[in-house]
């Protein structure tokens, strides 16, 4: 992490409101990407709740250099929680199978359609593996599930995407 971000986190932890705003601005695009992909139409609400949890608990972050992984954990948790209570009802399995035909040149609308066909926890696996580049073991640890669960969720999720996305 860039030294000035770690310094801003330290200053925010010591009660500097200007530094706190800087930390929020720095984290917002990253948290927005995770929350948007997992919570879909509830993404803005999930992002707001995730960012609130982050600023409320920033004082408990012992190592400012761990900011990104710490924020990622909170963002995934809040996004899954908000998506489960929201209107994103997963479509049925036939719909999921049908969405496996998304072409190489899939548009944003088609990506969204494929994501909408999955339960939030499955989207979380896909985001951590493919947007964040985490291993199956790291993904399992972050979500608090067995590696086998990650594998099966990933298998179902990647069936819906073409090879260049699931590689």
């Amino acid at each position, binding site marked *: 992490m860039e030294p000035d971000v770690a310094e801003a986190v330290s200053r925010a932890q010591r009660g500097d409101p200007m530094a706190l705003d800087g930390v929020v601005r720095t984290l917002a695009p990253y948290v927005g990407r995770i929350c948007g*992909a997992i919570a879909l139409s509830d993404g803005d609400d999930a992002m707001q709740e995730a960012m*609130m949890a982050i600023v409320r608990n920033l004082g408990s972050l012992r190592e400012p250099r761990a900011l990104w992984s710490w924020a990622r954990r909170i963002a995934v948790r809040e996004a899954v929680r908000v998506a489960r209570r929201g209107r994103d009802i997963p479509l049925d399995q036939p719909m999921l199978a049908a969405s496996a035909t998304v072409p190489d040149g899939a548009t944003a609308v088609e*990506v969204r359609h494929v994501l909408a066909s999955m339960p939030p926890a499955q989207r979380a696996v896909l985001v951590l593996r493919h947007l964040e580049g985490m291993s199956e073991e790291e993904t399992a640890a972050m979500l608090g599930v067995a590696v086998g669960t990650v594998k099966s969720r990933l298998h179902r999720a990647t069936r819906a995407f073409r090879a260049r996305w699931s590689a």
Partner: protein
Amino acid sequence: MTDDRWPTAALGEVGRMRVLAAAFPGAFLEERLVPRSFETVWGYLSDLERSIPDFDRTVGGLRIVRRDGERLEARARAAGPVPLATTFDVDLRPGWCWMVARPAFYVVGFAAEPEGDQTRLAHMEALSVPGPPGLRAALGPLLRMSRFGVARHVPRDLDGIGRALGA
């Protein structure tokens, strides 16, 4: 990996103000829908030397003493027989004003966004205590009590802004 086909979430200026308010135990935030355009509302509000003494009757005057892009230094003088002066570091951008008193004991925030042909305006004030996270956590209950005073002041400011805009 970044892929702009994946859905993303965003906070917006008002959302970011809600997030920052969550970081201060004694913060009070109020939002109003002002029946005026964003340009009208922000055109008035962002002229801090004119607007703040106009809508906040506890401020006798305010002067910008330094300006460096979005960062300003402002000196506010209290209204009344004892003209106490406070220096603020200010971050002023379209739709965003974040004012931090030196030495960081008080924060004042305004955020505005267009909502149709009206404007959503959020105003927040809070006591802010600099110091290590443990000390600040210990002072939480005391800071929460300060909310009662701030909760009286913030609506008066918004009333004053509404009067100034004829809204």
